[in-house]
């Protein structure tokens, strides 16, 4: 063979190698995440995507279902004492951690204590009501509380109730987390992937047929969808509204969505420093006019392809606390103008902080256009996400377009925002009746009674409007049709029980 022919043959081989070989193995599931999770230690972690990984990796005491009810996981049953200050849980028998050690009541106690005391724990406030935890026998855990705490079970259905092997506490947990979930940790490459493999000794192993799970981090939503369509991924989370059409048009894909737990709203500075002293901050009629100038349905259609759930309350549609007596207001330009006139402020102008992502900017521009029609001039101030909280805490804002990711328990969607001195009450809203209702609701376990308290608080906050609620964000997944059995949950997590790759 001449040199020339040799070269041609080599080039052909190379080409064949490059073009051939599409990697696809049967029982593997590759999930595209929008961001890179932070610490893989449930006690130190803070990101939403981290929780998606934890749901495959770690087991928790209880879980929440699509109706936001608390259901058993490691705790098979539980009850509160008559005074509401003792929670007793029965722990499932025969459960093992990934390192082979036994998950018993003592291990649960060790985890709750670590979450409460570890220097870098972010779970301390979630478990703030817990005075002590005891494990009188291997299947019983007793929580003693400082005061009745209705949101506690919901906290235990998330990171605060996740269980690590106490044998792994000596070394840093995040680089090599050892849990008891259906999948165990294999490897992580920061900003690229996290790989898990099936844990054969999982107590409920029959429900999990996928052998290996790879989470791949792909921040750009268009690129994430392209990877799904080209077969590099089997499933992606948070499909961008602008990509929904393309995904639905692809015969190989299913698009699944569900209204989430959180909300998007406009936070208004009412009493935090000098910048609160505007007609907007001082007169509730101006805020009401602003709210009435917005057409929530149109916003949903124009910016979000109609997938969000328009609303004017903090609790999502799935929650038993979502109150039908508080309908979403229709746009009313005439009434808005009337309110402005009554407030003696026919021309109002204020600044709105907006995170500098494309979608938030679009949303802000639509709000700006709608408000201008009633005589409200919204000045959009684009701000990097990392600075918004700081600016807001310092009171250097008039209004902010911001979202809250939402919590299973209603307390987590209102208490810290609306009570006097609440940790994220940056508008410095303060109302004695609201404080009383929300503080009381924390200690009440009966749903009907709690509903009344939240309704009482909401009646006032709807009038005062420290936050103008716009809609509940929806979680949207695009899934390859060969993957079946995925059940969406309002918390936006991916639960792999029953998921099959055909």
């Amino acid at each position, binding site marked *: 063979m001449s040199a020339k022919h040799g070269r041609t043959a080599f080039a052909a081989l190379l080409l064949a190698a490059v073009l051939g070989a599409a990697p696809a193995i049967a029982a593997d599931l590759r999930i595209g995440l929008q961001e890179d999770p932070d610490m893989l230690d449930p006690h130190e972690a803070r990101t939403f995507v981290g929780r998606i990984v934890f749901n495959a990796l770690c087991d928790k005491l209880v879980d929440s279902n699509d109706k936001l009810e608390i259901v058993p996981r490691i705790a098979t049953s539980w009850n509160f004492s008559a005074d509401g200050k003792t929670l007793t849980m029965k722990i499932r028998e025969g459960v093992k951690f990934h390192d082979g050690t036994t998950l018993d009541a003592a291990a649960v106690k060790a985890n709750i204590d670590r979450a409460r005391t570890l*220097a870098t724990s972010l779970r301390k406030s979630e478990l703030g009501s817990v005075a002590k935890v005891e494990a009188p026998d291997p299947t019983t855990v007793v929580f003693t509380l400082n005061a009745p705490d209705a949101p506690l079970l919901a906290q235990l259905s998330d990171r605060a109730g996740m269980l690590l092997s106490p044998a792994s506490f000596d070394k840093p947990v995040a680089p090599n987390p050892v849990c008891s979930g259906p999948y165990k940790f294999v490897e992580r490459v920061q900003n690229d992937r996290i790989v898990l493999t099936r844990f054969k000794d999982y107590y409920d192993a029959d429900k999990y047929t996928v052998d290996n799970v790879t989470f791949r981090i792909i921040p750009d939503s268009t690129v994430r969808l392209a990877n799904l369509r*080209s077969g590099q991924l089997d499933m992606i989370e948070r499909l961008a509204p602008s990509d929904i059409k393309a995904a639905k048009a692809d015969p190989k894909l299913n698009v699944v969505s569900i209204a989430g737990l959180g909300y998007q709203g406009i936070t208004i500075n009412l009493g935090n420093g000098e910048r609160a002293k505007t007609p907007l901050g001082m007169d509730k009629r101006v805020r009401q006019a602003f709210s009435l100038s917005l057409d929530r349905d149109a916003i949903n259609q124009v910016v979000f392809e109609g997938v969000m759930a328009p609303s004017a309350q903090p609790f999502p549609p799935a929650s038993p606390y979502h109150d039908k007596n508080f309908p979403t207001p229709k746009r009313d330009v005439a009434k808005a103008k009337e309110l402005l006139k009554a407030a003696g402020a026919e021309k109002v102008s204020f600044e709105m902080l907006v995170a500098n992502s494309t979608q938030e900017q679009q949303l802000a521009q639509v709000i700006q256009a709608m408000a201008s029609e009633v005589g409200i001039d919204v000045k959009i101030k684009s701000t990097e996400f*990392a600075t918004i909280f700081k600016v807001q805490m310092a009171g250097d804002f008039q209004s902010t377009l911001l979202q809250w990711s939402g919590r299973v328990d209603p307390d987590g969607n209102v208490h810290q925002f609306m009570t006097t001195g609440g940790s994220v009450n940056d508008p410095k809203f303060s109302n004695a009746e609201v404080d009383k209702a929300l503080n009381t609701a924390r200690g009440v376990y009966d749903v009907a009674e709690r509903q009344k308290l939240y309704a009482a608080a909401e009646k006032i906050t709807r009038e005062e409007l420290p936050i103008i609620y716009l809609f509940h964000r929806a979680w949207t997944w695009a899934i390859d049709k060969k993957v079946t059995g995925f059940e969406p949950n309002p918390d936006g997590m991916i639960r792999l029980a029953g998921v099959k790759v055909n």
Partner: protein
Amino acid sequence: MWSLILNRILVAVPTLLLVTLFVFALQRLLPGDPLLTMAGEERDPAVLEHLRHLYGFDRPLPVQFVIWLREVAAGNFGASLRTGEPVLKLIGQTLPVTVQLATASILIAMLIGIPMGVLSAVRKGSWVDYLANIISLTGLSIPHFWLGIILILVVSVELQWLPASGYASVFDDPVRALQTTIMPAFVLGSGLAATLMRHTRSAMLEVLGLDYIRTARAKGLLPRAVILKHAFRNALVPIVTLSTLLFGQLLAGAVLTEQVFTIPGFGKLIVDAVFNRDYGVVQGVVLCTAIAFIGLNLFADVLYILTNPRMRS
């Protein structure tokens, strides 16, 4: 040559110190707070206070800088505030990825750019020259991220020929490395090829107009020998320097391409760290980039001497 190398190393120390001081100051001037990002949506004040103390952010800035310098001098670059991974491990994970991508890009750029530049210089004013100019202008004008997304949509989504994303080391899995590197390297290389083509063309034109080329032609040498042996060798000097500098730029400048093709590279590490205000990672990465740049500059000078005998004295 050795005195040049020694000289450069001596100058490098104050340069590096200045660069790190500059980056340190610049970062702290940026609005935003890494701890607020870390403390999560709840922003519990007690947690914030605790973290501030734990990471030493409650100390005066000069003290923080000196502590950081002392740790770096001892070989401790610190850990990521976001994930707790050591900075050196992160750099070790991402730098080879980008070096592989940058090497492939430069090779593609040279394979396209240099022959095109030589051809258009030799055939100046002909249709070959015009075509080369059009190609190079197009290459310079097309934004990388756009070309990247179009390639993904056509080659990966429609034709399903190549994976849309990912990375494999050429030492672990050469086939997959080729599959995953070829598109991003082409995207980066096409832009660089244009730059290289323009420089090769002008360097060649300059050399081709010199007296010794006329002499060589007059001697009756074949045109091929005149162009490749006599002209090209001398035109190569600025091209080599340029290629090395372009390579240096790629280390931190491939960010957009890395984002589009989801390559866990060095540029992506820096951008993510800046957005998260991950101070330790930003400082460590900038220090490494500065060292690499100084090294590459030195390398370019050495190459210059090797390709140009007149500089060897």
